[in-house]
């Protein structure tokens, strides 16, 4: 479980996060949604310690993440997997070396054990046989899946995904969502996803927080979206006329 209490973050005079308190549950897909500039990425980066909050606390289970020294911070981070918006695969390494990198760096395993783990992770993301390809030789969707494979290679308790569907076609996007959901279920991870993809929200949103101007404007799950009378949520989710029309036809409101 990851819990944040009263998080504030300012850049100069601009206050981006204004007292956010949230709980991200274990074994669930926790979604942070909101319009561009709402503070989603800043919140996600604050959660993993890439940005330090101006005030407030981030808890990883019983560990106060915001007060850790560098050494302890690194230890906690080794239990975190993260999928970046652009996948962040290392260009100088092939797919296999990318996935193996955290193991090479931190784990005392035999080459055979590492190979087995790499093959397993590639199998989980459905990319067997691309081991020797370089990031420049694979598609955007494949890069995302390799990114997921690298994120789960150390079997982390916490999985963070920054815009996992951006730049993907709807079918691949669905595949990535299903993959994240499956990993969350099977590994019982605390998964936190930053997205503004409506299909993801309606498909895998088990615990959703809507950010608006640096504050939490709504919280709930995908089943409560349709009936919610929160105007910000409705205008965000059903922003397109096509979706509004569909909703009216299906629900009559």
């Amino acid at each position, binding site marked *: 479980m990851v819990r944040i209490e009263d998080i504030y973050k300012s850049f100069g005079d601009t206050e981006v996060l204004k007292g956010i308190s949230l709980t991200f549950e274990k074994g669930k897909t926790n979604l942070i949604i909101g319009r561009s500039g709402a503070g989603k990425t800043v919140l996600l980066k604050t959660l993993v310690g890439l940005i330090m909050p101006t005030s407030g606390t981030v808890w990883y289970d019983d560990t106060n993440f915001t007060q850790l020294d560098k050494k302890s911070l*690194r*230890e906690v*981070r080794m239990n975190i997997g993260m999928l970046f918006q652009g996948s*962040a695969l*290392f260009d100088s390494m092939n797919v296999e070396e990318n996935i193996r990198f955290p193991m090479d760096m*931190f784990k005392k395993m035999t080459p055979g054990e590492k190979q087995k783990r790499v093959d397993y992770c590639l199998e989980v993301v459905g990319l067997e046989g691309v081991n020797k390809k370089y990031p420049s030789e694979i598609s955007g969707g494949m890069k995302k899946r390799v990114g997921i494979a690298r994120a789960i290679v150390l079997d982390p308790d916490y999985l*963070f995904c920054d815009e996992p569907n951006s730049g993907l076609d709807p079918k691949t996007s669905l595949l990535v969502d299903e993959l994240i959901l499956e990993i969350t279920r099977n590994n019982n991870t605390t998964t936190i996803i930053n997205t503004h993809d409506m299909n993801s929200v309606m498909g895998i949103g088990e615990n959703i927080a809507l950010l608006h101007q640096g504050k939490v404007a709504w919280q709930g799950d995908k089943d409560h979206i349709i009936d919610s009378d929160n105007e910000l949520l409705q205008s965000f989710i059903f922003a397109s006329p096509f979706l509004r029309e569909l909703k009216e036809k299906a629900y009559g409101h």
Partner: protein
Amino acid sequence: MLWRLPYHFGRYLMMLWQAFSVPENYRMYWKETVRQMYDIGIGSLVIVALISVFIGAVSGLQFVYQLDGQLIPMYYIGYIVRDLAIIELSPTFTNLVLSGKVGSNMTSEIGGMRQKEHIDAMEIMGLNTAAYLVLPRTIAALAVIPLLVAVSAILAIAGGYVATVLPGELSHTDYVRGLRTFYNPYNIQMMFVKSYVFAFILSTVSCYQGYYVKSGSVNLGKASTQAVVYSNILILLADYLLVVLLTSD
């Protein structure tokens, strides 16, 4: 710009403090160091060789022109080319050229990694990114650049020979006699001291520029240019200080 100098210097020292810490995994750091050594060494050999041969050749010819008809013996040309190459031209020119080639490459590579969130990805894995990105490059530069400088000195002397002896401006005996005259092994030490200091400046300043680059291709281009400009200024400054220090009695 100058008022931000203490800020940059402080941040540079902090980066070095982080960089020179115990590696998480020696084998991985060594692998990266070897990759960098190959890039710096093999990748720069042709340009260093080309520049060195021409430096030696031009120096030789210039001194043939200067000393022609003077009372100074012609074999002094070999002596002058040798010492000019060893003490000054090879260490300084090689490093000025390498700051343009190797330094800007380091800045672009690390800066690109910063912009494409590779560094963030490494941070989240629990890696000391300053150490992993800066230490192998600095060690590789310190290991390879002095060797390149030594090669450069040899080639500059050879270039002087080719330009003066082959066209008949100077006899083979005179040039070789010049090379053997007034030889002081201390000059070789001076060459290596300069090489190490310049290599350190070149690699760490370039890494610094890349490590703290802001987003956008314009900023990456600017950082690469700044890496070359600042490295060159600092190399020239260090050159002067080293000459004062190393040649004072």
